[in-house]
């Protein structure tokens, strides 16, 4: 990491990115048909979450991060590009998972939610994260 980049990040963005990441999750939560959203680090650490009270956040985050890593490590083993987004459809709802530089974005939605609408929102969220987190940030 270069000195000037670190200085810029430390002096000008000390609080804004924390709010920023929470805003991203709240925006996802506001979408029609969305029950909840979270951003979880690859180690299972919850960065931000807006989930229904019936869902135990830490357990879900731990498993969601495991799923994200599973998709990444499988791709690596197969010599394939890593996943960008994934959708899992079940009887009572749909889960979306997207990879970002700081971790995985998870969206829990109704079964009949507009897949396209959520995909666009996830793409926007990832673009926001990319813009807010300097290229050197997550890679050191």
């Amino acid at each position: 990491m270069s000195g000037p980049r670190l200085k810029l990040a430390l002096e000008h963005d000390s609080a804004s990115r924390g709010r920023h990441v929470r805003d991203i999750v709240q925006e996802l939560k506001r979408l029609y048909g969305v029950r909840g959203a979270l951003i979880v680090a690859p180690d299972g650490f919850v960065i931000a979450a807006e989930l229904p009270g019936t869902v135990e956040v830490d357990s879900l985050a731990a498993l969601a991060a495991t799923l994200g890593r599973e998709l990444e490590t499988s791709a690596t083993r197969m010599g394939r590009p890593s996943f960008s987004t994934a959708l899992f459809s079940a009887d009572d709802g749909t889960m979306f998972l997207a990879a970002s530089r700081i971790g995985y974005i998870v969206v829990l939605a109704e079964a009949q939610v507009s897949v396209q609408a959520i995909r666009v929102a996830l793409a926007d969220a990832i673009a926001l994260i990319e813009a807010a987190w300097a290229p050197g940030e997550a890679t050191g």
Partner: protein
Amino acid sequence: MTILRRLWTPRDGREPLSVPDALRRAELRRREGRYAEAGALVARALEIDAGNLHAHLLAAYLHVARRATAPAKEEFHWVLGHDPNHARALLGLARIAFEERDTRTCHDLLRRALRFYPEFPEASALLELVRAREAAPPAPVAPAVPSAPRVERLRLPGTGRALIIGRADGGLIASQPVTDDAKDVSEALARMLHVATAVLRRAALGPLHRAIVQDGRDAVFTRTDGELVVSLALPRATDPTQGLLDVNRLWSATQHELGLAAGPPAAAPSSTPADTPGAAPTRRVS
């Protein structure tokens, strides 16, 4: 530690910072996904106090967050070397063991963590996942289908890149085209679906039926009923509705060919022309 220092070398002319302050700030940066900044602060803390357990644990987390498995393991082991029952370090290593397909080690580490800290939701959730995986019978060599399948009659859509027909335990029934790694793909697919099922259960969404996984090249459409898995790789730009129609058509056809469905295969047409009869044959593994 050496690797951490190399990756996040602190800058010159920095303000004085105590170890607790550096770690507190590092935790805050971590909470914001600012891993490099957090790493720089942890490195500073370790320069002052190389034996700080909290700093080593944070370093391990940050390596995991950066998908750097080897140094993460090193740091988790360091922590366990100083506190053999450190639940968070045990969980961290268990997660890495799971990634490395070392289920037994993962299981043992989680049990150790839960022995000392029974109320540990992340460890409990992961142990439940591992136990369910262990309970599944190993993939047999021959497919457990009720009748001889005629999967060679299945045809990919014109834009289809690959078809995997397998079982939820990872056993491969058939693939198209014929590739040496189809068995590995089937196993990886089953494993991924197994984890996804656990996440859906934890989110109270019910059993998994369909999945779409996109990467930079393909969109892989999968349908499953918890026993059979049909997975179709299409170009990334494929419309989701059309991709699901294509995989549904192959699902019905597969069930018919395997003798799992009473009626004829569904007549849903593919969006794209079917491969010509001379196209790559489907390999049946039996």
